[in-house]
């Protein structure tokens, strides 16, 4: 079973609010000092799903693709250390400042170039822009179905059977292959790369494809050709109007709080 996994490198989502800075003029997040970028937290689960499906099928290939700067090689290496077979980095100055719609176009082109695939797996969303539209974008561009927010995936009779996480429960669906499936955190813990695998991963090849390799022209690339225009990016300001309840004991504070809420008709 040949599976393609798309991964992304992002600023560490656990960066404390106090270290989080935005350059409002450039409309960009300023990388926090001393906090290196990480693999998007949902993506190792997509890699884990790919590895389990390959193991269950008894063979095949897992190819990892990441679009990003040179440093995104680390996100690919992480997946290779988990057990993926090959990596492809999509890197081009024209990819700077693009949106997820342009990203989906580039990923779809890369997947077509890889050619042989039964299944494409991705994390349910990237924890930087929190949009989760790339899986559906790639599926629509490739003309194949997309099943989102998977907690369990299995191959049954040449189809993919997926348990999806709904707002009030779960849903099990079946789709023909090839298909795109986005994987949710409910899927379970991804395996942790062992030292030996990290050493092996260092020897695995990572190809680098640029925009021209994907047949993308400059009028599809760059910030100026975004589908979703970014007009402003800022840290929301909070104006505090808090009333701190003062009293000698915690019990007294609690009673005052209850009485105030009662006076406000809130309880």
């Amino acid at each position, binding site marked *: 079973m040949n599976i393609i996994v798309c991964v992304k490198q992002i600023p560490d989502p656990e960066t404390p609010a106090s270290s989080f800075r935005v350059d409002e003029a450039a409309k960009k997040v300023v990388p926090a000092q001393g906090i290196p970028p990480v693999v998007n937290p949902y993506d190792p689960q997509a890699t884990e799903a790919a590895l389990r499906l390959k193991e269950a099928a008894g063979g095949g290939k897992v190819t990892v693709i990441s679009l990003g700067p040179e440093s995104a090689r680390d996100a690919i290496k992480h997946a290779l250390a988990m057990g993926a077979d090959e990596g492809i980095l999509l890197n081009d100055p024209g990819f700077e400042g693009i949106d997820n719609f342009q990203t989906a176009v580039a990923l779809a082109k890369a997947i077509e170039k890889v050619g042989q695939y039964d299944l494409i797996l991705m994390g349910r969303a990237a924890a*930087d822009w929190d949009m989760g539209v790339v899986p559906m974008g790639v599926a629509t561009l490739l003309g194949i179905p997309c099943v*989102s927010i998977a907690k369990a995936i299995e191959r049954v009779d040449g189809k993919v059977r997926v348990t999806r996480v709904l707002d*009030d429960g779960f849903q099990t669906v079946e789709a023909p292959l090839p298909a795109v499936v986005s994987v949710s955190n409910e899927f379970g813990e991804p395996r942790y790369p062992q030292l030996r695998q990290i050493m092996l991963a260092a020897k695995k090849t990572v190809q680098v494809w640029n925009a021209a390799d994907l047949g993308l022209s400059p009028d599809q690339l760059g910030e100026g050709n975004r589908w979703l225009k970014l007009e402003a990016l800022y840290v929301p300001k909070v104006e505090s109007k808090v*009333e*701190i309840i003062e009293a000698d004991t915690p019990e007294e504070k609690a*009673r005052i709080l209850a009485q105030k809420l009662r006076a406000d008709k809130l309880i």
Partner: protein
Amino acid sequence: MPGVLVIAEVADGKVLPVAFELLGAARSLSAEGAGPVSALVPGQAHAQELIARGADVVYVAPEALAGQMYDAWLPAVDAALEQSGADIVLLGQTASLGRDLGPALAFTHRTAVAPEVVALKLENGRLRVTRPCYGGNARAEHTFAGKLQIASAKPKTFDALEPDASRTGEVKTIDAIGQSRITVLSVEKVESEGVRLEDADVVVAGGRGLGDPSAFTMLEELAKLLRGAVGASRAACDLGWYPPSSQVGLTGKTVSPTLYIAVAISGASQHMAGMSGSKNIVAINKDPEANMVKVAKYAVIDDYRKVLPAFIEEVKKLKAQG
């Protein structure tokens, strides 16, 4: 003629409330000059209800569309767009439909979707949206390059209008339904006890600062007393202290109760993203510098272990007084 089209999802024979909330938002856009408001719904039975909530035109799709996957909806949405001429589409960000239908619609129309917006406005006749990103640390404002502008919102983001039975509108039939490539084999509902978190008027939530999972028993007692529901921060859920279905935040539920009591929750931005719509926030926290204290109406800076039992007693006393 431009206009706004709201996609109304139906589950268990009922229109999901997020559609009414989006109609409220659509009426505001219409007042700013966005044109008439239309709605697409599977099933004739829901047409009047949508008009009462703000739709000028309701496109009724086959009832069989309810509960189907996104690709079955595309022909009906296209027909409604063609007939209405709408250039703005609003959807509820639901796992059952909107989360998939928004981007599928965007990519088939070669345009973008802005998911999980928190504000919508019209600027020079075009939609401008605001949405949280970077785990709630930042806000981004977007416009659209393409003609069609698509946005989705989580439930409880916007306010629905009170139903007005005297409102009138047109009802048109759309006989389009797609053949989904995805087959639904089964659906399993997870029932929560008591008041549903998303619908609760009072939410009592706990975080990692509780230091002990058994503290949730106290939160449950308070929630029951106030006829509310219990929520938890991601940190508390990750520690296994409370079920993930009760998680409030960016990757969990969005709530906007009248009263949100945050017990030992520092207020990481990803948690704030799920509850910042609360009308009144109470923070009980040892740290006066906690983010949650800053956004609160009232804050008690003390150990919740001493505060909560006294608070519960006083609430009981006040309730007994009627």
